[in-house]
């Protein structure tokens, strides 16, 4: 149960394009919507309309400012959810066997009827991908929309995670990262996809694509708009001096 499989048949996961993400949080909303209405305990909110609202989310979008050694800083929107790690530390720490990694597709799931809500898996995850639902007392995490991707009652185009399906910018991609020739694997290869916190040794399946380098000079008109004179002359100069004397 909580022993990790030596290998999985597929490595289903997400590829998130930090170049394309506009930080609209649509993936956050669609994730919350789907996963509240479908598989497992609903994602509860506490004090949703009060002073200090909080709630359970399986996907969150951070925004960072990155300052290169030279040039302007960049704002980068950064969606974060479970990375479905190959060496998932959250699974092995689980005392009840509620957490497991599926052999067939590598998805990391929680069997909620076995979860005692001890929170140890959330401690073991370096990424903050697991949140203990405060109403149900069970651990919630991204299921990769396991109840969508194999769901034959849905039209074919909807058989992908809700976040991927909804992303208006096309910044999220879903597929088998274990298959070298899959679209997502090719995307990772050509764009130089990377792991989050590789030093933690978790071997995440999800990959992030780096922002493309920005053009060195974006605004070609800017140099032409330099102020013509630093000091005002003529009528404005007279006005400036007169006002200063007052």
């Amino acid at each position, binding site marked *: 149960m909580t022993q990790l499989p030596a290998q999985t048949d597929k490595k289903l996961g997400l590829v998130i394009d930090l170049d394309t993400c506009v930080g609209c949080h649509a993936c956050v909303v669609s994730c919350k919507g789907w996963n509240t209405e479908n598989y497992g305990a609903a994602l509860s909110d506490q004090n949703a309309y009060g002073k200090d609202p909080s709630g359970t989310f399986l996907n969150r979008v951070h925004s960072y400012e990155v300052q290169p050694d030279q040039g302007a800083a960049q704002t980068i929107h950064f969606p974060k959810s479970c990375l479905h790690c190959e060496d998932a530390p959250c699974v092995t720490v689980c005392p*009840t066997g*509620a957490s497991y990694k599926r052999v067939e597709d590598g998805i990391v799931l929680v069997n909620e009827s076995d979860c005692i809500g001890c929170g140890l898996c959330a401690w073991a995850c*370096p990424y903050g991908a697991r949140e203990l639902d405060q109403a149900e007392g069970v651990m919630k995490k991204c299921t990769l929309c396991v109840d969508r991707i194999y769901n034959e009652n849905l039209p074919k185009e909807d058989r992908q995670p809700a976040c991927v399906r909804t992303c208006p910018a096309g910044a999220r991609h879903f597929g088998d990262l274990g298959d070298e020739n899959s679209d997502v694997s090719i995307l990772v290869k050509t764009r130089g996809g990377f792991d989050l*916190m590789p030093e933690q040794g978790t071997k995440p399946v999800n990959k992030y694509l780096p922002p493309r380098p920005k053009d060195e000079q974006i605004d070609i008109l800017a140099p032409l708009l330099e102020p013509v004179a630093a000091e005002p002359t003529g009528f404005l100069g007279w006005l400036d001096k007169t006002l200063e004397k007052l």
Partner: protein
Amino acid sequence: MHPAPSIIFFTVFSGLGFGMLAFMGLGKPDVSGFTAFIFFFIAYALAVGGLISSTFHLGNPQRALKAFSQWKTSWLSREGCLAVATLLVMGLYAIGIIFFNTRIGLLGLLGAILAFCTVIGTSMIYGQIKTVPRWHHWTTPLIYIGYAMTGGALMTGQLRIATAGLVTIGALQVVAWIIGDKRFAEEGSTIETATGLGTIGKVRMFEAPHSSKNYLMKEMVHVIGRKHARNLRIIGVLLVSLIPWALLMFFPFNHFMALLAVLAHVAGALTTRWLFFAEAEHTVGLYYGQR
């Protein structure tokens, strides 16, 4: 990390209880009848009380029995199994001593070893957590064993072992703090590695994903209270180690002095255990520009 009172009580008091059981298993003190009953009663009250306290932070404690199933990989599961095994073995051993005035040495030895292993199990629940570099270090099991055995010696009146233990854990605690303060940097996780954006430049949190604190931040990005850490460290090490040591060394030994020493030691253990959690920094804090 959030210093939950239930977890602090669990680790301190169950450690103390299992430490006591380890000594009693070895026949220290060699008592029988009602006196033995009192000793065993205190040890069991501490050990079981601690374990019960640990269930208070569970979301679904009614399913706690399932936690005995995953001993192959999970230290929390192993700790539970070892604790129950210790309590069962020592229960039989105690019945022999209390009611039949018979000490089954081998059973006691087995119980003592199990009690010792239970404390290792408790320590490894934290020691295994790689995401908290301060905990993921050999000092964590040593601290837990040191505290449990010193407390056990103190509670069972093993004066020589207790005085030696008190000095040892004081020194050990200071060493653990000195090493622990450098651990996060040593492990090398930064906001740059967490986001993978370090190749572009210096990363700064621009906007949080949510407007108020969530579970992750309450549980793992506990930063309040750290500002008193230095004072609490001094108070903690005085209470847990130096004061009880001085009481045992320089004052005539009697029940009142022993009680004072135990109270000081326990108050100190609660303080340093609070710091063990409050000062522990989790990598998820990096995503929030905090530690």
